[in-house]
């Protein structure tokens, strides 16, 4: 499993990547949507874990652009919104079915990763 984590809160995302790596998950991280798109030019990822609210390119838009380049890629969103329901209301129409509220529990994230990658076809 090769995972790209994207969040402008770089202390958060770098530490999360370190913890995933300690659990034998090949995790890279970047601090912006622009960097994520650049990284995709020479790296292949199975899954991206994206923050929803980021400068310039937000998570939903980033998912659209990444999916256009690699349709089989899977996505999980992380949100600092008050509740998952709040996020769901705004993002489900964009195809963002998988999400976690911050703070993220690493066991929940890993369970979700397994679930997403086992889900077969890419999201609509």
């Amino acid at each position, binding site marked *: 499993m090769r995972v790209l984590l994207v969040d402008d809160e770089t*202390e*958060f995302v770098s530490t999360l990547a*370190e913890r995933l790596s*300690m659990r034998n998950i090949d995790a890279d991280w970047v601090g912006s949507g622009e960097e994520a798109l650049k990284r995709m030019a020479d790296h292949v990822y199975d899954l991206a874990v994206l923050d929803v609210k980021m*400068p*310039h390119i*937000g998570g939903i838009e980033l998912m659209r652009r990444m999916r256009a380049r690699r349709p089989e890629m899977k996505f999980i969103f992380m949100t600092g919104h*008050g509740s998952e329901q709040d996020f769901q209301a705004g993002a489900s129409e964009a195809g963002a079915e998988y999400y976690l509220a911050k703070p993220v529990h690493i066991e929940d994230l890993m369970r979700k990763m397994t679930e997403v990658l086992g889900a077969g076809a890419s999201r609509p």
Partner: protein
Amino acid sequence: MSTEPDVIGQEEIRYFGKVTASISHELKNVLAILNEHAGLLQDFVAMAAQGRPLDVERIRQLSDGMLKQIGRGDTIVRNMNRFAHTADHERATADLVGLVELSVQMFGRTAAARGVTVQVQTPGQPMMIATHPFVLETLIGKLLDHLAGKAFGIGTVSIGLGWRGPEAQISVPGLATCAGPLAELLASDEVKLLLAVLDATIEFSVAGGALVMTLPGNIDAGRANAPGKPA
């Protein structure tokens, strides 16, 4: 049919809601970082229990990072507290520089998420005015939200503050790319009512893209007095 106080109250509540939503989002990010740092420390402890030596330098980095986030969280909560207290008195003598800076801090994260940086050019000293602090915060917030909320291509919004005689002025140049929508906002009933409550005016040059808001130094005395104006 809504009365004027209803409209003002609705605008204030809407602004309060936006600010608290933004703050809670930012606090969630602080908690998320603390959660990961604490989780990584737990991972290290678990590995140490299995005989792997602790990386003291990494632990120092993590604890420094946690202290930094605690400081960040404290600043957020202090700003929230200051913001909440601007609603304590319907009218009060307040520092315009502080009010504008507070509005900018409240909207900083939202603006940054939209790729907009907001800067305040202060005169280097307080600008004390007697006004309706919360109504003024609401109006400034409404304008900032509008400027940062659309894809106007404004990289930086620069807010200047100063006196013109007894009156205080807030000026924002460089808004040509959003002149049309901004002019529409300024012509809305909500903005007109907020301006009327503040006894303030806004001039906006569509061609030049410059906005200037003028406020009385003392709302109770009209446009003739400025309590904090430097001699």
